[in-house]
């Protein structure tokens, strides 16, 4: 299918200047979100998910690479197109405590954008629209919340006001940054069902950041998951494949770390520490070769610490891992014994030239 994606990130890079030198928070990311589809972004704290999302939402300008909305690069948009893009693409801030203006009531927050774009006429219509939005996110009866200030709301209530505000603009693309993280399981299911209806009935596309793999699985079952590690995508493919049969050692470790609500299982799992090190490498001083190698349980000296692994197709998804790529090559050519480089244990094949 070659329909133009809603959102396309190509070679996205974001380098921050800090006192200790440049920090490459995002180091070359290629991703697409199609209408009515979900792309989930998961990965370690600090790996660049929010930075990617902010560039996609046009809040920050990437230091290199391009963001395209419906085939048009942001940098090539005229004023009218930019306004349209700002309305169609809504970013839901990761921190609901920072995202709401403390001096505005919920009603005022929810309707500010609508008024600015001339989408509601008069106070009665605005209040009715705001009440409808609150019902969508389970804040009922709406009258109890319309005139409240953010400090009068609990964390999860603020988070839902934030979501409701983004829905006000009838967005075509929602960029959700951990938007269900403060909700209890029951309300979370209900909110995901609401968002799922937007996806299925109104064809809204989602760039959905979450650390919760169950949420990713539930919401992006027909979509894709991209796993990031230190500024790069290390595994990317259809959700059921990535969750059910992870290939990259980092993804495997993530899925292995899931705790179920079961105290006995949890105790049994506690001892299962699988990584070689818990240390997250510094962005100022990335390890040579595969950035995951100091922690990777599948690390092979000489194989992993030379060059950066590129994303390559493996098992219906892209994986950036030397060992996975090598094992795949072996599996693909089990019979050409005369040509194999692996006949002598420990010998190496040359690195592949191209990715993807």
């Amino acid at each position: 299918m070659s329909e133009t994606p809603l959102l396309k990130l190509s070679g996205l890079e974001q380098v921050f200047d800090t006192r200790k030198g440049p920090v490459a928070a995002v180091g070359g990311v290629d991703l697409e979100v199609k209408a009515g589809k979900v792309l989930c972004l998961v990965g370690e704290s600090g790996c660049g998910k929010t930075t990617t999302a902010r560039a996609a939402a046009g809040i920050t300008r990437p230091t290199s690479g391009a963001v395209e909305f419906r085939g048009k690069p942001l940098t090539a948009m005229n004023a009218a197109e930019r306004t349209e893009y700002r309305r169609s693409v809504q970013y839901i801030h990761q921190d609901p405590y920072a995202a709401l203006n403390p001096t505005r009531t919920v009603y005022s927050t929810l309707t500010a954008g609508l008024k600015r774009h001339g989408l509601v006429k008069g106070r009665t219509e605005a209040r009715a629209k705001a009440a409808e939005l609150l019902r969508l996110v389970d804040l009922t009866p709406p009258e109890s919340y319309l005139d409240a200030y953010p400090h009068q709301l609990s964390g999860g209530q603020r988070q839902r006001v934030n979501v409701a505000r983004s829905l006000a603009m009838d967005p075509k693309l929602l960029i959700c940054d951990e938007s269900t993280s403060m909700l209890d399981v029951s309300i979370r299911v209900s909110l995901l069902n609401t968002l799922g209806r937007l996806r299925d009935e109104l064809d809204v596309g989602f760039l959905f950041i979450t650390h919760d793999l169950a949420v990713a699985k539930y919401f992006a079952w027909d979509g894709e998951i991209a796993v990031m590690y230190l500024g790069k995508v290390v595994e990317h493919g259809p959700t059921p494949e990535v969750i059910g049969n992870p290939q990259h050692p980092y993804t495997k470790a993530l899925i292995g770390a899931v705790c179920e609500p079961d105290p006995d299982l949890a105790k049994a799992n506690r001892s299962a520490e699988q990584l070689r090190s818990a240390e997250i490498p510094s962005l100022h001083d990335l390890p040579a070769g595969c950035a995951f190698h100091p922690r990777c349980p599948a690390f092979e000296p000489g194989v992993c610490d030379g060059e950066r692994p590129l994303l390559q197709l493996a098992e219906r998804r892209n994986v950036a891992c030397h060992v996975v790529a090598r094992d795949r090559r072996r599996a693909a050519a089990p019979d050409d014994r005369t040509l194999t480089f692996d006949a002598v244990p420990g010998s190496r094949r040359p690195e592949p030239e191209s990715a993807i």
Partner: protein
Amino acid sequence: MTDPILSVRDLSIAYKTGRKESVTAVSGIDLDLYERQSLALVGESGCGKTTLGLGLLRLLPGLGEITSGSLTYRLKDGSTADLLKMKPEQLRRFRWAEAAMVFQGAMNAFNPVIKIVDHFADTLRDHSDGKRKWTKAAVEARAGELLETVRLDPDRVLQSYPHELSGGMKQRALIALAIALDPQVLVLDEPTTALDLLTQRSIVQQLHELRKKFGFTMVFITHDLGLAAELADRVATMYAGRIIETGSARDIFYEPKHPYTAGLINAVMPVKGLRPQLESIPGYPPSLKAMPSGCAFHPRCAFATDACKNERIDLDLLTERPLGMSHTAACLHHDQVRFERKCTDTSAARPASIVESETADV
């Protein structure tokens, strides 16, 4: 050591919402916490968890007020103190040195114009007992050590401003700050919401170790039942401002007796297996301004009878155990609740459902 470290009796907290109006966010809380215990506080968004957590340290915002009850702590020197009678100066010393809190929305809890290292300096200088002099070098050494326990690189983080750290990094820095003065009681409000699983795991492990080493008591508020199962000895479920069930972690996760707790556990989405059709608990959480009569859960409860609508239902003792580990539930029909754990196995994946009432069978 059978005295509780913190004893809460009949605690109620209200927020002013107008000149003469107020809403009660938390009511009738009785709780005894013993040394080295970890208690998970779970419950629906808006049910009063943060309010209770803040109340335990008298950290409520200006419009919040403890309207009744008592809070008694056993201090490090062995004396007991009534928190509600403490003077501001005593209270300042008490906080952080005796009991500390990791706030929800941690990402926003740092002052944006102050470097991380100076947050440590302020806390160490303001709240310590004054016996130790916190020079710049001493602050940096202590802060560095604390940051390392939460897997942050002190070289980079200490000199950073809060906006230069990711959400999860800020959250970890705040945990480090909270344990800076070796508190006896640590209240953590959604301490790992922004963290990926591996970082969460390692923080959980750190907390286990720190608790072993320093012997603090932990109250942690979470919506993540997996985390509660992993970290808690005891669990208390809250609904509409009240504790409606308490028990050991095994009581709550294997044999919940309040229909709300059972529904909550069954709404957890499994990561393993096929994708089940999930159901949330039907209906909406009540708003404080329109609280249902009787058992506040009755409009959403499959077991509700007329008796549930009439009067307040108190916690019933189901299994008695020492040290606050008893199983109690506030439900008239708890004997009818049979919890069936939702299956997470691929071979038998089936829709999750709210526990069905036995009496509903024809």
